């Protein structure tokens, strides 16, 4: 069975949260594990699961499923513009190849993500397609290797359908900071999808792909998940290898994932998580089968913003030094070395990125280091401490994923401080290195059919399993809500 796209029903079924169907999720006590078989009975639809079942039963071919997604993608992409690079032909080929393998090798040929179309944020390196980080300075750059998270997805049978749009090098909260294009929110074409992983969120929201990878440095998975009405997970720092992720702020960067359900998100996390010898900061903490730990509902009973921007910009000023036009990417020729550096960087890097490089360079400069970088590190220590204390008393902390629903395109672009302030609900989680899951929880006024709003759940380090379990239960309480954007019913 294909993912549930009976648009008519979806469109009609969502409505605003009323006090009567609103549930409280302030603190949730430890949950018992439950058998995996209960998954299929949950109301929250798992696209991955249904794809897998159709492939195994022979009901549908990977080529059929892929064609379905690609036709929807071709229809919606002109207005949404999630992808910077589309690998549709390659995806079709891979799907046919998978069908051949299933035909000859049977069920053994079907990996956990076989036939699952994945969108990959363009700051994650992919060996056979361009990877730009959303920056003109890497226009035309093709990495020699796959990022570890991408490699693991492919090994699990996933098909990478393209590279999704983002704020340049992850710096932004609207995806308007892309060096290539502006992505719109599938719920309302006049609004942003959030950022910086806006392309990955909008692609899943518009069902252009099944799941997608993003990266979260200060909220870049969670805030767009909230804006686009999808599930977004920011894992614990070190849970997923950063190898192949173009570094923005190395001590805050985390590879995260999006899905239209908690089950899908859990499935992707199980595949991409785990130690990687290529990333010394990746954790060797055990990776559970997150999906199998999910529980059906019927079994159940209940300012760091400144510090963040200083630390993130400081690390960014260093991490982006490599984009110098010498070895790869855009080079502006000049008579002397400084001219070459200056020209290449001035032309290749966008406004927001240049501003953050300047801020970071300033914060790390002699005479300012103690007042900015060092002080921000001290704040970070305090943030960690207060989270730890809270998480000793509670299993999960909840908050909105963002202080508002999706902004209008252009609304924040000339007011960087307002845009930074929009990250206030998410950055502290990155400073503490904790995992957090965002699930759509309802709607607010806006657009033609309301705008989705996400709920953020924050857990202790490596408690992704717990977060996903609670998220899955939460999802099931919203059976009458559908988070499929109205765009899909049109045309």
């Amino acid at each position: 069975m294909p993912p549930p796209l009976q648009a008519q029903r979806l469109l009609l079924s969502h409505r605003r949260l009323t006090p009567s169907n609103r549930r409280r999720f302030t603190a949730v006590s430890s949950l018992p594990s439950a058998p995996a078989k209960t998954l299929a009975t949950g109301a929250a639809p798992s696209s991955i699961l249904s794809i897998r079942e159709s492939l195994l039963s022979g009901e549908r071919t990977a080529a059929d499923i892929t064609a379905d997604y690609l036709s929807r993608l071709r229809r919606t992409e002109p207005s949404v513009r999630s992808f910077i690079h589309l690998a549709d032909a390659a995806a079709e080929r891979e799907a046919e190849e998978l069908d051949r393998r299933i035909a000859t090798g049977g069920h053994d040929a079907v990996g956990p993500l076989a036939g699952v179309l994945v969108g990959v944020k363009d700051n994650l390196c992919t060996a056979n397609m361009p990877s730009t980080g959303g920056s003109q300075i890497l226009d035309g750059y093709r990495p020699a290797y796959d990022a570890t998270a991408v490699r693991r997805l492919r090994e699990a049978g996933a098909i990478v359908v393209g590279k999704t749009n983002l704020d340049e090098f992850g710096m932004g909260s609207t995806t308007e900071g892309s060096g290539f294009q502006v992505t719109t929110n599938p719920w309302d074409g006049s609004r942003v999808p959030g950022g910086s992983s806006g392309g990955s969120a909008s692609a899943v929201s518009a069902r252009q792909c099944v799941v997608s990878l993003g990266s979260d440095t200060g909220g870049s998975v969670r805030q767009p998940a909230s804006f686009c009405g999808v599930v977004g997970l920011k894992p614990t720092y070190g849970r997923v290898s950063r190898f192949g992720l173009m570094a923005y702020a190395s001590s805050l960067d985390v590879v995260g994932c999006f899905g239209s359900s908690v089950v899908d998100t859990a499935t992707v996390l199980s595949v991409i998580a785990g130690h990687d010898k290529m990333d010394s900061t990746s954790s060797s903490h055990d990776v559970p089968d997150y999906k199998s730990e999910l529980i059906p509902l019927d079994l159940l009973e209940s300012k760091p913003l400144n510090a963040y921007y200083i630390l993130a910009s400081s690390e960014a000023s260093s991490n982006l030094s490599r984009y110098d036009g010498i070895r790869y990417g855009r080079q502006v020729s000049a008579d002397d070395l400084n001219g070459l550096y200056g020209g290449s960087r001035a032309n290749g890097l966008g406004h927001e990125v240049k501003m953050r490089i300047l801020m970071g360079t300033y914060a790390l400069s002699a005479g300012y280091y103690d007042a900015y970088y060092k002080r921000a590190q001290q704040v970070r220590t305090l943030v960690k401490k207060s989270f730890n204390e809270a998480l000793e008393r509670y299993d999960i902390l909840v908050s909105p994923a963002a202080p508002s629903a999706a902004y209008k395109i252009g609304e924040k672009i000339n007011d960087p401080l307002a845009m930074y302030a929009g990250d206030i609900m998410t950055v502290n989680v990155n400073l503490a290195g904790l995992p957090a899951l965002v699930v759509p929880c309802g709607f607010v006024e806006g657009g033609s059919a309301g705008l989705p709003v996400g709920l953020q759940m924050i857990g202790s380090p490596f408690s992704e399993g717990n977060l996903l379990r609670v998220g899955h239960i939460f999802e099931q309480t919203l059976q009458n809500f559908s988070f499929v954007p109205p765009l899909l019913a049109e045309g």
Partner: protein
Amino acid sequence: MALTLLRGIRTPTLFRRNAGLFFTTIHPPLSSFTTRAESVQATESKAAPKSIQLATKEAAEHKTQGFEAVIGIETHVQLSTVTKAFCSCPYNYGSQPNSTVCPTCMGHPGTLPVLNAKVVECAVKLGLALNCEISMTSKFDRKQYFYPDLPKGYQISQFDIPIAKEGYLDLDLPVEFGGGHRRFGVTRVHMEEDAGKLLHSESGSYSQVDLNRAGVPLLEIVSEPDMRTGIEAAEYGAEIQRLVRYLGVSNGNMQEGSLRCDVNVSVRPVGQSKFGTKVEIKNMNSFSAINRAIDYEISRQIVLHKEGQADQIVQETRLWDESSQKTFTMRKKEGLADYRYFPEPDLPEIVLTSDYIDEIHKSMPELPEAKRRRYENMGLSMQDVLFLANDDNVARFFDSTLEHDADAKLAANWIMGDIAAYLKNEKLSIDEIKLTPLELSELIASIKNGTISGKIGKEILIELIAKGGTVKSVIEEKDLVQIADPVAIEAMVDQALADNPKQLEQYRAGKTKLQGFFAGQVMKASKGKANPVLLNKILAGITAGGASAGGCVLWAMLSLPWMVSGTASSPGKASPNMLLSSSNCT
């Protein structure tokens, strides 16, 4: 005179001897990851250029005129690990540009450093060898600047917590420089990565980047400003080289850039505690150049001081120019460079355990300083001590020879004399020759017990070095056993006397000088195999005349060690009776 001895250092050679002063000067084969002895024989440098003599002498004289120099050194040691510091690329000096690179060491987007554990091991080894305190917890930091040979725009280094700190280095100055023991402080040792290299086109219109060297592990050793003269600084560098070779952490080759020294030189009036303005000197690719560059720089600064132009000494980097034997301004420092160091977020902290450090401590070989003190206690001269301890392989050969009961002084003489000369001519290192320490000890024993003469010994040595084999087999094969049978020697003496009646008459008449003539005749007839001691005693007996005198001589001979100890060879077993009965000298 001593200061002029350093000329000739650039001549490619192995094992030139400078009575204990050895400098790395040579370009060994490119594949060389092995350590080799490279040294210089000072006595060859009689024709040192006047300019150097003057410069260095002036510096020496100035010192006595109320000024002293303060010198500190930063040494970069390139580690000879199989792979680079943060990726799995190999590094081989001289390979095709950009042939040993990967996305990580080229600084491609998304790549991350992964620390090579061997680098930490090397750093701890060197830290311990330099008597440093090892940091149980240290970290990496980023040092940021833009240059095309620096792929990431920052160098991964260590800033405020180096892996080792507060140590010292002991050394002995060469005898001809006045000798003396010195202890120089070591401020810190830290780990970092090397940058690539720029290749400039001849026209100067473009440059190319070779990233083979990018990411190769380095240890930077910062000294305290404890040195006062060029030779002290050069010897400090040479001792570091010796250490890294003994430890096997680097080939220490200066020509390949595996060992690079940047020195800071300032001058101040004697008695003043404040340092003068320091000048950094780079581009010295031998220890001799370090010595000369520093002495030149000291001299330059003193002249400025004396001319009242001390303000002309500014904080700057100067380059040593070998052809003019001068230093030149490379760049003036406009304030302190701001490298915007901050902790490297891509690498976890380095946490060491005391077990780990103990394990490394136990695995370390005897170090040069301990070796020198041991050799000194054997009664060897400082000249011998410095020669032998200079090179790990030579020291090992020497020690192994001693393990076979060879006499230390004799073994030292052979190694420093004939063996060293051979190595020099053939451009070999001591571990490349076929002579084994066992056979050298056999050779020494064979001479000592009279089986062969010293002269024959030298011939055998060359044979053994070139072709191998045992002392015994060479002696037998070539019939080289010394003739120590008095009867046989006397027969030859008789023959020589008979052949030269005129000289015999003069000899008997008291012209004792002719003893040498007859000895020569006998040696010629015996092809050098006659025991010279015995021969001369017999010849001396002739002038004394009469059997009784001869008897005295022979009795004296009875106390010769070879007669009592007499091992395998028959001459030693000759009985006094036999000797007496054949002592017909007339």
